[in-house]
């Protein structure tokens, strides 16, 4: 459904993307995981036609964004990171303008707006000005807007950043439901648990390069099933084991403070990329176990 080939993007002397190649399958929820500044938003901007790549190709449902952007954009829905709604317009007006931009017939968008406002539980606010909404409500309206024209690919750029945990879970439910309804979803996030919980497959992106692509389970299995966290000279060190008892035995040998727990996706990210996903892009490979 999405095919990316040798995609590069250069801003002045900075290489934001250094030759990325990826394939996202139809109906898949694909997590695109990386620290701030790793190139996640640049990738989404290229795939949605907001930015032109320096080189390489991006195909959406077989249509090349570079040579036929209008038709490539027809299949896309985008929830950008910024809350880009018109505050001086009502929810209905924001959605109506979107429907018209995507060439929807009046009868079609009228019915669809009501359906989607119900879907994101915002029906009661249909005629409220957007500037009166909270951040979480705006994010839900943006999801409704992105789904209005029935896109086959939905791009979500950090959809839950800055939201309360309860609102975040509500957005997760919406994302899951959207996938069940048949959309392919491309999700960027730096919340590791979000990718682990939602994604069928994830790509680890570090400094504009894809370090690994696989299912969360397979990426975690590369390390083992159990992790041993130990404090050594004031620093946290983690080792991985196939067996829980092995982890405890290894800890007992040191006789210090330790925790044995299941391996998570953050372990896989740190071990496979040498980066911390929640921080800024790394300058070297100094992190990890």
């Amino acid at each position, binding site marked *: 459904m999405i095919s990316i080939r040798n995609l590069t993007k250069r801003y002045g002397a900075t290489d934001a993307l250094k030759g990325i190649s990826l394939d996202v399958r139809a109906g898949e929820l694909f997590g695109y995981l990386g620290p701030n500044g790793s190139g996640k938003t640049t990738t989404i901007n290229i795939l949605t036609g907001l930015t032109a790549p320096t080189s390489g190709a991006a195909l959406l449902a077989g249509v090349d964004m570079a040579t036929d952007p209008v038709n490539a954009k027809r299949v896309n829905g985008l929830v950008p990171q910024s809350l880009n709604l*018109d505050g001086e317009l009502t929810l209905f007006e924001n959605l109506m303008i979107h429907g018209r931009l995507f060439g929807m017939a009046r009868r079609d968008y009228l019915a669809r707006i009501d359906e989607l406002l119900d879907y994101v539980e915002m029906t009661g606010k249909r005629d409220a000005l957007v500037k009166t909404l909270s951040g979480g409500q705006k994010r839900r309206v943006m999801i409704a807007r992105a789904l209005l024209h029935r896109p086959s690919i939905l791009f979500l750029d950090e959809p839950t950043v800055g939201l309360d945990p309860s609102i975040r879970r509500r957005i997760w439910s919406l994302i899951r439901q959207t996938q069940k309804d048949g959309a392919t979803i491309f999700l960027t996030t730096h919340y590791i648990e979000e990718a682990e919980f939602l994604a069928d497959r994830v790509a680890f992106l570090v400094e504009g390069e894809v370090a690994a692509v696989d299912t969360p389970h397979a990426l975690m299995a590369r390390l083992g099933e159990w992790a041993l966290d130990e404090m050594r000279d004031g620093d946290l060190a983690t080792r991985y084991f196939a067996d829980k008892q092995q982890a405890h035995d290894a800890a007992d040998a040191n006789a210090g403070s330790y925790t044995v727990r299941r391996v998570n996706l953050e372990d896989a990210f740190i071990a496979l990329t040498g980066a911390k996903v929640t921080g800024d892009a790394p300058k070297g490979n100094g992190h990890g176990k």
Partner: protein
Amino acid sequence: MASNPFRGAYALYLREMLILKRRIVKQIASMSVTPTLYVVAFGYGMGKDVTVEGVGYLAFLIPGLVAMNAMNHAWAIANEINIARFYLKIFEEFQAAPIHNVAYVAGEAMAGVTRALLSASVILVVALLFGVTLHCGPWFWLAVALNGFVFSTLAIAAAMLVRGHSDQNMIASFVITPMAFLSGTVFPLSSMPEWAQGALSLIPLTHAATAIRAAAFGQTPPLGSLAILALLGALFFIVAYKVVDAARN
């Protein structure tokens, strides 16, 4: 699949009109303040008993104010674009939509022309309150619309190229404000030296003021001025269309 390159233009125009509707009281107030001050200060305070080109100064001044105000309010579309681009990030929504750049420019230009026509209407009401009635036939509105088209397309092109509000304000200070005063809006160009008249005839607002004034006095405006406005509008439209991509990267 081929598509109408202008599809989506009306959606963009509609958005601008909905925003304008929501601010209409403030907008009309803002459109009427400057011309009222000009009429009071220059028309009454200075030129009450002055005759220019065979008419009272107030009657001479008001068509010039129509040209100036229409230019300013068509140019103001650049501020709306800047807010959409740098602050609200709505520009991303338009760029992610399956529309051609030409539709974007057309939609915003139509909004600029509408603002120009509205500002002209406001001045006519102000003029009426001061006892000045002008001839407002089709030539008058055509000249105002062309003036609005020239400056809204120029505004769109500028808004695509600037990197922030301050750049836009600088263009206004160096291009729009001098034009407002030097284009025969508040004084007759015939009072300037010949070399200056030649130089000022290169400015689009000079042709707008000439055409609007002629139409307001019930005459057929110089077709050359209308043609120049139409050509400049077309040229700025093409430039705006070409530079939309510059704003994306």
